[in-house]
């Protein structure tokens, strides 16, 4: 683009700096937008890796008495798949979305602690690299090159020295501690930013729902990562310094590990899911052309989830042999936390009802999310009934349930978010046709695999088995489930190709391609480093709606 200097003279466009210099800029950046993109790109990379691990497992399980993988390899695969998806995909997606969007949505120039932001990213990345380094350097029962094989929740005493010799389990412990430091840093930063850097006029009550949800998620991260870290340190003490916290052969308690782990682990799944709710709460209103239905109720429900979620952990332990009163308490609490979650679903539907729905790719993903998350929540209610959980826990039914939550729920909203905010981050639209291919392939594949696996659990198939005999009623179901993987992989391939292609050749987006209402759309795409030329001042929760509709602004009704 030519610029005119003094009359008549055309100035040359400054040349792009050399590649090493540009790479260096990314390496040392503290700009929340760049760090957000780095978080999300890395999360997508680990997602592809963990997806390959899953595909390998489904090949092994497609037929009875499979010989594609030996048991030690399979056991490492499910451990690494789960650990990667939770800690190296789900958590960085939260951090990436929050770091990119929160300052923009609250009208700030950056996060409260930009260097802490960078520190968090690099800790996350190094933690991930440390986990996968175990494939090269870990020592275990199967000799050299053993990644952890104790399952992603690493129950004691299987993780004690006596049963997990070598260092593979230590890679699991240390990599999660390291990347957990990253997650905690992000959470602290998000809280500080939201509390202290909102633009003029934006009271807490007027913040976008996305920002509310990120605030609650961050508070949960700060609260629940410590029990996990504490338990892992106790396990290290057991393994190396002669402690016996979880060493049952010396009087320690295996159940204690489970309490510590699930005290973290259950709120963790809400930590994973709430950012998905955050994306849905922004996308659904825009593509319904209506404000979110019941804003106050949505905020209240979010806070209720944040509080109740820390009181239900032992529903992962119904089969452990707790007293009846404990089982009944946790059953009741678990069903109760389903109430605010259900309220959110009802409010999203209420937002769409009476609207003028546009089914662009972000909205397609959010509609599928609503159906799938509804089912996921209901299978969760089924398992909240403790006696029913005695049948369904540790079977493929619960595997199907949590994949419904995390793939059918979280990942669908995250993909919707990618299509929705990619134009803002890069200035170019993702291709809509490829987006629809991605969507339909993923929906079809997801349902082929995970609808089917519910029935394998109902017919008695336990989880984490590397093979099974014929004649148990599981063969056909497993073959069908494995075939679904092909469609899912094809769908994700469409996304990756779409991103690679559109980053350079996508249609130009402009500031506000979706006709949306929150502050990130009030600046250029991509935003300049300083985000806004002039920091905005707001009077309602939809500042751009007020600007576009001065005759009917939100602040008259809120």
């Amino acid at each position, binding site marked *: 683009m030519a610029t005119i200097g003094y009359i008549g003279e055309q100035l040359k466009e400054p040349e792009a700096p050399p590649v090493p210099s540009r790479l260096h800029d990314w390496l040392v950046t503290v700009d929340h937008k760049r760090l957000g993109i780095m978080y999300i790109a890395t999360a997508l990379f680990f997602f592809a890796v963990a997806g390959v691990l899953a595909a390998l497992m489904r090949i092994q399980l497609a037929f*009875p008495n499979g*010989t594609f993988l030996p048991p*030690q390899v399979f*056991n490492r695969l499910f451990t690494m798949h789960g650990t990667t998806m939770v800690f190296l995909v789900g958590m960085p997606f939260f951090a990436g979305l929050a770091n990119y969007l929160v300052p923009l949505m609250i009208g700030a120039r950056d996060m409260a602690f930009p260097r802490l932001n960078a520190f968090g990213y690099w800790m996350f990345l190094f933690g991930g690299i440390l986990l996968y380094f175990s494939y090269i350097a870990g020592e275990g*029962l199967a000799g050299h090159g053993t990644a952890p094989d104790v399952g992603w929740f690493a*129950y004691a005493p299987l993780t004690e020295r006596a*049963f997990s010799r070598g260092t593979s389990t230590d890679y699991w412990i240390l990599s999660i501690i390291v990347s957990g430091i990253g997650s905690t840093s992000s959470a602290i930063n998000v809280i500080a930013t939201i509390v202290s850097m909102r633009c003029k006029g934006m009271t807490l009550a007027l913040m976008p729902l996305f920002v509310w949800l990120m605030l609650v998620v961050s508070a949960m991260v700060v609260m629940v990562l410590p029990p996990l870290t504490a338990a892992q340190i106790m396990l290290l003490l057991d393994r190396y310094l002669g402690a016996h916290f979880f060493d*049952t052969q010396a009087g*320690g*308690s*295996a*159940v204690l590990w489970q309490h510590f782990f699930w005290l973290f682990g259950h709120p963790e799944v809400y930590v994973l899911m709430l950012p998905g709710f955050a994306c849905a709460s922004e996308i659904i209103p825009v593509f319904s*052309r*209506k404000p979110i*239905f*019941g*804003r106050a109720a949505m905020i209240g429900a979010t806070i209720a989830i944040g509080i109740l979620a820390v009181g239900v952990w032992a529903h992962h332990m119904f*089969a*452990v*042999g707790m007293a*009846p009163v404990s*089982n*009944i308490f946790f*059953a009741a609490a678990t069903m*109760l936390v389903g*109430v605010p979650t*259900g*309220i959110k679903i*009802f*409010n999203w*539907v*209420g937002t*769409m*009802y*009476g*609207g*003028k*729905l*546009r089914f662009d790719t972000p909205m397609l993903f959010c*509609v599928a999310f609503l*159906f799938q998350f*509804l089912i996921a929540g*209901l299978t969760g209610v089924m398992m*909240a*009934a403790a*006696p*029913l959980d*005695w*049948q*369904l826990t540790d079977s493929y039914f619960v595997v199907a349930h949590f994949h419904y939550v995390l793939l059918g729920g979280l990942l669908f909203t995250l993909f919707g978010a990618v299509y929705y905010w990619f134009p803002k981050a890069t200035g170019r639209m993702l291709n809509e046709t490829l987006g629809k291919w991605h969507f339909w392939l993923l929906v079809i594949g997801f349902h082929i695999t995970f609808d089917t696996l519910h029935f394998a659990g*109902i*017919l*008695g198939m*336990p989880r984490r*088995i*590397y*093979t099974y*005999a*014929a*004649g148990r009623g599981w063969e056909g179901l497993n073959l069908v489930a494995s075939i679904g993987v092909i469609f899912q992989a094809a769908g994700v391939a469409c996304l990756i190709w779409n991103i690679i292609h559109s980053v350079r050749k996508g249609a130009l987006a402009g500031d506000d391609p979706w006709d949306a209402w929150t502050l990130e759309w009030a600046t250029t795409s991509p935003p300049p480093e300083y985000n806004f030329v002039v920091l905005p001042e707001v009077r309602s929760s939809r500042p751009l709606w007020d600007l576009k509709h001065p005759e009917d602004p939100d602040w008259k009704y809120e």
Partner: protein
Amino acid sequence: MNLSRQVACLWCLSIAAASAEPVHPVGNIFDPQATPAESVYHLSILVISVCAAIFFVVAGLLTFTIVRFRRKTDDHDEPAQVYGSSRIEIAWTVIPILIVLVLTMATARVVSAIQGRRAEANALQVTVIGHQWWWEIRYGDLGIITANELHVPVSSAAKPAPTFLRLESADVAHSFWVPQLSGKTDLIPNHPNNMWIDPRQEGTFLGNCAEYCGMQHANMLLRVIVQSPAEFGKWVAAQKLNAALDSRADEGRETFLALSCISCHTVSGTSAAGTFGPDLSHMMSRETLGSGAIPNTPANLRAWVRDPQAIKPGNLMPNMQLNALELDEVVAYLSSLK
């Protein structure tokens, strides 16, 4: 694992042949054959009905919405900007809470009924001890120790004969799951648990260890063999006897007792008193080897003794490096332990 492939085909035939009674290999939780599983089944009908109703209402509304409120192609006006409705919010908060109350009460009733039952005075009590990757089964009152197969008498409303299980573990966490008989209960070291079953149908029920316990978790299968009182009595009598002293297997017995087999295995009435591995006193009365890894046939027995690692890699019985003569003799001896 060519061996696994080969035996797979013989699998169902062998099970059917080994036991004259019906085999129940498919653990369908909706086909209960004992009271605990049945209580769970009845609760599940209620819970699933409620969940299904919620699904149809909400999914129906969502489907209606996406069809009815689709934007028409040239319509660029914004719809009425509705912010919410307190009345609706209260309604769809109160109704779910009421549903939660009902489901909690139903759940509490079943939890108490199943967990609250204590062993009656003369009831059969069995201790099941989980090991990495097999089940040790001890009938304390009857003085029987066996492995991987839990024999119990059949129960009926007219003549109830429940079996009470005490669940322990020698190493890591395992879980006892035979879906048609009961929900699962974990076997956790240092944390004994209790459960009970009262199977109503004779036959063999298959189950699996349901808590990941290491490399061969997949091959830690469980058999509950439900027998008529008469058959059960015969089985008990046979198990109580010391191991058979078949004179044709004398050489084999001498070889066996001289090798380090006895460090891990017990054969009653001999000097073999190891407790690390399964009790072999009546091993030929069992349907499988390796806790369900392969059917108990002469060829399979030979293959297992020659190299257990080829069949169940990672299991805690090492390849004993027997030469051909030792192998023949040991297999001959073991084959005599009916």
